[in-house]
C-alpha cells in the first residue's frame, strides 16, 4: 500500500517540530539528562497539555485522543530528531495496553489521568525482546511477586502496568509506585535520556484491570516497534543532517572536507540508508493505522531503522574526527540513543528472524 501525509498531519508535524525546537534544544536535553531522575515534570506537562501526546494514538472509544499510528509516528520521529527527554515511549506502551481492554471505570480513569499528565504510567516488558508478557512476575490472589529488570521510566512512573501469564489468559495489572513491597532500583543507562529501572514485587497489591488475547498482545508489541522505528528514523535524520552541515563547514587541507569525494560518496550512501529507513517507518505506521496485518512490516521497520540510525551515528562521529569523540560534542548523545534503540525491543537479527516467521507463518 502507499500513503501520503494529510495536510492536517503535516501541520501537526510542524507544531511538534516547533515545540521540540523551542522547548528541548540540545542544552535542555543535556540539563535534564544530567539530573538524577533524568525527568522534568514541567516539560512533560507541557507535552501533554500543549501537544496532547499522551494517549494521542488511542481511539476515543478507549479513552484516547482518537488520532492514529501515523500521528504517533510523527511525534516519535520528531522526538527522535530532538532527543526529547520525556517518558513518552513508556506512556505509549502503557496506553496501548490499556487501549486493548474493554471499557471500565478503572481503565477510563487511568487513561484520563495519563492524558492529563496527572499520572505517569509505564508498562513492564520482558527484558529479552520486549515481549509484553513478564514471565518473571507472577500474580496470585491479586498480589504480584517477582522481579523484572529494565522497565522504561519506572523511576518516575506513578503507575506500573504489568502483564502476567499465570492466569488462564494473560492479565494486565496496575500497581501504584508507592505500594508496599514494590521497590525500584534505577539502572545506569548508556542513553541518559532514556532511563530504565529494575522492579521487585514482593506481594504487591495490584488492580487486575483485565485480560488480553495473544492477538492483542501482539498489537501492543507491534505498536511499540512502530513507535521506536519512527523515533530511530528521526534520530538517524538528525545525525545525517548535522553531519552534512559539519562537512560543509569544516576546513582541512585548505578545503571543506565535504568537497572530498570519498566523504561525498559515503554521505550519499548514508542518505540512502536514512531515506529507506524513513519510508519503512512511515509504511509501518500507515499499515498499523489501517489495521492491516503489520507484524512483518513492524519488525522490518525496527531493524531497518535501527541499523540505519546506528550507521548514521558511527559515520557522524567518524566524519567529525576527534571532536566527534568528545563529551562536549552532542553527537554521542544520539550515538547512545542509537546503540540502545538497536537492542531495545529485540536486536535487528531477532526482528529479521521474526519477519521471516511472520511471512512464512
Amino acid at each position, binding site marked *: 500500500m*502507499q*500513503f*501520503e501525509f494529510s495536510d492536517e498531519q503535516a501541520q501537526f508535524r510542524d507544531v511538534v517540530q516547533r515545540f521540540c525546537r523551542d522547548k528541548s534544544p540540545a542544552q535542555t536535553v543535556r540539563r535534564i539528562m544530567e539530573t538524577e531522575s533524568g525527568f522534568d515534570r514541567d516539560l512533560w506537562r507541557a507535552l501533554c497539555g500543549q501537544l496532547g501526546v499522551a494517549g494521542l494514538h488511542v481511539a476515543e472509544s478507549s479513552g484516547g485522543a482518537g488520532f492514529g499510528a501515523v500521528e504517533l509516528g510523527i511525534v516519535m520521529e520528531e522526538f527522535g530528531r530532538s532527543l526529547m527527554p520525556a517518558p513518552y515511549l513508556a506512556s505509549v506502551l502503557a496506553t496501548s495496553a490499556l487501549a486493548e481492554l474493554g471499557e471500565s471505570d478503572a481503565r477510563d480513569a487511568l487513561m484520563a489521568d495519563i492524558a492529563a499528565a496527572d499520572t505517569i504510567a509505564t508498562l513492564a516488558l520482558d527484558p529479552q525482546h520486549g515481549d509484553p508478557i513478564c514471565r518473571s512476575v507472577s500474580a496470585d490472589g491479586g498480589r504480584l511477586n517477582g522481579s523484572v529488570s529494565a522497565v522504561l521510566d519506572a523511576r518516575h512512573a506513578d503507575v506500573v502496568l504489568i502483564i502476567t501469564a499465570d492466569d488462564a489468559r494473560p492479565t494486565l495489572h496496575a500497581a501504584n509506585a508507592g505500594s508496599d513491597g514494590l521497590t525500584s532500583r534505577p539502572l545506569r543507562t548508556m542513553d541518559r535520556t532514556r532511563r530504565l529501572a529494575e522492579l521487585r514485587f514482593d506481594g504487591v497489591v495490584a488492580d487486575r484491570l483485565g485480560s488480553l488475547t495473544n492477538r492483542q498482545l501482539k498489537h501492543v508489541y507491534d505498536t511499540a516497534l512502530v513507535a521506536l522505528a519512527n523515533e530511530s528514523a528521526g534520530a538517524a535524520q538528525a545525525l545525517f543532517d548535522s553531519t*552534512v552541515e559539519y*562537512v*560543509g563547514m569544516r576546513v582541512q587541507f585548505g*578545503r*571543506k572536507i*565535504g*568537497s572530498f*569525494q570519498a*566523504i*561525498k*560518496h559515503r*554521505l*550519499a*550512501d548514508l*542518505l*540512502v540508508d536514512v*531515506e*529507506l*529507513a524513513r*519510508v*519503512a517507518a*512511515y*509504511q509501518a505506521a500507515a499499515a498499523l493505522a489501517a489495521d492491516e496485518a503489520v507484524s512483518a*512490516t513492524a519488525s*522490518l521497520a525496527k*531493524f*531497518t531503522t535501527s541499523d540505519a540510525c546506528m550507521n548514521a551515528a558511527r559515520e557522524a562521529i567518524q566524519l567529525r574526527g576527534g571532536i566527534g569523540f568528545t563529551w562536549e560534542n552532542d553527537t554521542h548523545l544520539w550515538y547512545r540513543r542509537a546503540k540502545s534503540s538497536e537492542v531495545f525491543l529485540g536486536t535487528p*537479527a531477532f526482528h*529479521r*528472524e521474526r*519477519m*521471516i516467521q511472520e*511471512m*512464512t507463518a
Partner: protein
Amino acid sequence: MSDATRDSLAASAAEVRDWLAANWDPELSLVEWRDRLADSGWGQPTWPAAFYGRGLGAREAAVVEQEFARIGAVGAATAGPRGLAAATLLEHGSDAQKKRYLRGILTGRDAWCQLFSEPGSGSDLAGATTRADRVQSQGEGQAGRAASQRWIVNGQKVWNTSAHHADYGILVARTDWEVPKHQGLSYFLIKMDQPGVEVRQLKQMNGHASFNEVFFTDAVVDHDDLVGELGQGWQIALTTLSYERSGFNRIRGGDRFEGRHGRVYREYERELEIANEPYTWYPQRAGRIDLLLERAAESGAIRDPAVRQDIATAIALQRCANWFSARGLARGPAGSIGKLAASRVARAGNQAHTVISGIEAMFEGDDSPLDGIVGEVLLSTPATSIAGGTDEIQKNIIAERILELPKEPRFDGGPFKDVPRN
C-alpha cells in the same frame, strides 16, 4: 472538471468511437492498420494535427486510449528508442524532419536506435569522440548548395539494444574540437543501412548479447538530418535522456490483448517479441527477490537461520526501495537514491540466492535451479549498479545536487582537443 472540459472529452470519446467502428479491423496487416492511424491522427492524438496527430491534451488522449482498450484496438508503435526519437523530433526537429520520420515511427515501419554512449565515454557521455566532418558534394558552389552539404561520420558507439535491426539512429557526434566538450557536439539522424555503418553484437558476461557496437567508417549524413543548430547536440541529447528516464522507451506488454485473434494481433505480438528480446534477463538483473522464500523452501535452506537473515535483509531492502519509488520520491536527483537502492537490492538478492542454493550456485543454464534463473541472477546483478549511470555517478549527483556539497574540481573545461582521454 468544468462542464466545458467534460463536454469536449465526451466529444472526443464519441468521435474516436465512431472512427474505430468504421476503421478497426483485426484482419488488417499491422502496417495497413497503422497507416489508418497515421492518416486519422488517432494513433498519437497528442501529436500536432500537421504531423499525424490531433493536437489533443493529455486528458483527451487518455479517453482515446480507453476507447482503443475497450474494443482491443492495437495502438501506434511506441516500443524502444523509436519513442525517444519521436519525442526529441517533436521538440527540436524541423518540420521537414517531422514529416519525413514521424510517420514511419508511428506505424512501426521504421525501427530506431540510440547512438550516444561510446567505449571511451561511458560515465562521461559528453566526452564523445565520434566525429562528424562537413564536406561539400560535387555540386559545390551551385544552386541548392546548403542542401548538397553532407557530413562524414567516423568513430564508434556502443551499449544500444536495437542497432542490429534499426533503420535509423539518433546520433551525437563531435563537430567542433576547439570548444569545451559540451559545446562541440551536434545531434544527427543517421540511416543505418549504408556501407559506412557496421553493427556487431556485444556479448555480456551472463551470455546474453543484448547490446551492439556500431562502427562508423566514412558514414554519410545529409545536412538536412542535423537536428537543431550545430553545437546544440548536448542540450538536445539531454532532452532525449530526460524522456528515457521518464520511461518513453519502456515496452508495453501485449497481455492487454489476451485471447484476441486476428492478423494484426499476430503481427503486433511478433513486434513486441522482437522489442523485448534484449530484456529477458532484466528481472534476474534486479535480484529476483520475489523467488527467495519459495526457492529457500524448495532447497530446504529456509531451515538455516543464517540464510533466513540474508533473505530478510534482501526482502526488506526491496520493500523499502519499492515504497520509496511508490511514494513518488524518486523524481529528479532523488531518482539517484532509488537507483542506488536498486543496486543494493540486486546485491542482496545475489547474496541470498547464493546461500540458498549452496553448491547449486556453481551451475548455470539447465543445471542451475529454476531452469537457470538462479544462475542468471548470479551473473546479471552486477549490471544493475552500472547500466543507466553507474552507482558512482549517482553518488556524485546526490552529493552535489541533493546535499549541495562542493563539486569535484574539473579537469576537462578547456577546448576538447586538449582534454586528456584514452
